């Protein structure tokens, strides 16, 4: 099936269970949002799907287009087409944006094939333009000394250059002012198409005004406890998460 399909996924870190029998499906061509309070396991889900070595998967499966991701290395998962836009993008000193993305593209090519420099820079400059990133950034070291907004734009730049099948945006709205939020959202919206699934992880409904989801899920204690249309996000914005916690406690 053309989707990310997660069944009964449980995972822990340092002995603490974070994901508890989580079930979730992100079909290709759709945008889904996962919301939830701090500590509910949202970021853990993105890390586990990406193959982060610190997490122990204790149960379940996570398939991307029918390929089991659990057990693969992070780079194998990435090359299969999963992109994670980090909540806190990491600095890579001395490696320019241009060389970094180029290396990432090169890693996807067959042995003996090379990224064509002219085409590459043409595309890179075009996408930087769209995201309002100055050309001088190509030679800046990856995320080094970037503002919060610059880091997030740079994540979206990488995402659009690497052409993934599925994208996870982990709290991409955190640390963004309203203008940056708009630019970044437009960048994500440009990537929406019938061949790509996008998962937006966020605390706040605000981002979903710009990136309109097909479905909204609520995560709590390592599970998806509610799923609904985009109106669910508005309800959460208005009422907070407590009512959901209470409902769960009652059930």
């Amino acid at each position: 099936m053309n989707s990310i399909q997660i069944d009964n996924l449980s995972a822990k870190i340092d002995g603490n269970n974070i994901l508890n029998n989580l079930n979730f499906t992100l079909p290709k061509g759709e945008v889904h949002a996962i919301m939830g309070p701090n500590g509910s396991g949202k970021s853990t889900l993105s890390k586990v799907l990406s193959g982060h070595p610190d997490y122990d998967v204790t149960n379940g499966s996570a398939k991307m287009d029918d390929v089991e991701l659990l057990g693969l290395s992070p780079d194998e998962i990435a090359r299969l087409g999963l992109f994670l836009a980090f909540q806190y993008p990491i600095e890579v000193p001395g490696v320019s944006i241009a060389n970094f993305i180029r290396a990432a593209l090169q890693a996807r090519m067959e042995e003996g094939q090379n990224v064509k420099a002219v085409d590459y820079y043409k595309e890179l400059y075009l996408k930087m333009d769209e995201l309002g990133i100055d050309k001088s950034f190509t030679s800046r070291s990856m995320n080094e000394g970037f503002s919060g907004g610059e880091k997030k734009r740079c994540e979206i730049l990488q995402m659009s250059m690497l052409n993934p099948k599925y994208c996870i945006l982990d709290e991409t709205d955190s640390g963004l002012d309203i203008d940056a939020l708009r630019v970044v959202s437009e960048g994500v919206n440009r990537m929406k198409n019938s061949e790509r699934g996008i998962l937006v992880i966020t605390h706040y409904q605000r981002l979903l005004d710009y990136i309109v989801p097909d479905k909204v899920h609520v995560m709590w204690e390592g599970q998806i406890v509610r799923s609904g249309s985009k109106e669910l996000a508005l309800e959460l914005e208005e009422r907070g998460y407590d009512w959901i916690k209470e409902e769960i406690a009652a059930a």
Partner: protein
Amino acid sequence: MIKPSNIEIDREKGNFHYPTSKYAFDAGIGLSEDVVKYISDVKKEDDWILDFRLKAHSIFEKKPMPTHWATKDLENIDFDVIRYYLAQGQKPSRTWEEVPDDIKNTFERLGIPEQERKFLAGVEAQFDSEAAYSHMKEDLEKQGVIFVGPTEGLRDHPEIFKKWFGKVIPSSDNKFSALNSAVFSGGSFIYVPPGVKLAQPLQAYFRINAENFGQFERTLIIADEGAEITYMEGCTAPKFETSTLHSAVVELVALKGAKIQYITVQNWSNNVYNLVTKRAMADEEAEVRWIDCNIGSRLTMKYPGVVLKGRKARGEVLSIALANDGQHQDTGAKMVHAANETSSNVIAKSVSIGEGRSSYRGLVQIPGHLKHCRNNTECDALLINSESQTDTYPAITIKGDDNSVQHEASVSKVSEEQIFYMQQRGLNEAEAMSLYVNGFVNDLIREFPMEYSVELKRLIDLEMEGSVG
């Protein structure tokens, strides 16, 4: 942006060996006065050179190994099992066609003739003890540039070379400079006349081919007033079961307003003890820059230095060292300020991989009677694995109120989160490490001529392969 290049010298590239049974000249095994005399004799040297050698030999015998600070691994060198002179002939060929086949094949495989065609003003290719090939572009010869070996240099141009030979680095400087002074053979003697500026580099390539062998080349470069030269050296040896010794002495003389840039890209196999003494003298307003890349070898001890002898002289050492499993890169720089308004800059970056160890040793001296001298030293170490090791020993003596010094040192480790980030973009662990290391040394590599930066980048990639797991 780095352009693609055909130059691809990798860590395994030097690991081959065409057996050479016929050495016409062989000083036998072990070191003695007779060996020294034999070398001098086959080279038909003047008496003063033989005296110089014999005196150095006795210094070598008397001088203790550096012990109080150096690694114990030095004690494992057995001077009695080394062959000190091996050559197929005495005179280097002027064309590649004339070079004997086995030697020619070796250098072709290392890509030397191709590099010469592409970007060099002249090449000397040394095979064990002697240069097999030496050639410089004709127009440089017409301008009075001399590019020969020490035997020819001291014999044919004593008025130029004798004055400086052994003066920047006296035989007694250390045990290995004494050893080199006793048995030196091969290397480059270069003279650039006043005002002559070489647009392209001269290159020497040092190849150790024999087992149980010691290579002791001797280089002396004199840039006369206002002259400019870039010299590059490359080195490889095959992997043998036994250890090999490489102990060179390199003296640079930059006269008033001259500029010398000396670039080393060493790619020794892991059985080579690389114990080299390199020092420059910079006269008034002269500039000397050492660019030193140390990859491979079992133990490298090398601290290129500049004696800043004239007003406004400038010295610089840019050093990159990669220490992998079983390797110790003990490198650094020496800056001796001996005139007013002199300045020096040292940037050293080391990468320790696996169980590799890198050490930085720096010496900076600015005496109190000097005015307006400046030194800047930066040394950064990167540790790749938890077993990797690095240490820094700066020795800075600055006196006087008008002089300034700046010293920065850092040690960093590649974090798991950085590796995860790069892997999430599709790079495997080795590619990620490689990219990270390239980023770490990037600002230094930018200083290199393009051809060498490409080679170095590739060397780093290969060194990082299999370093993770």
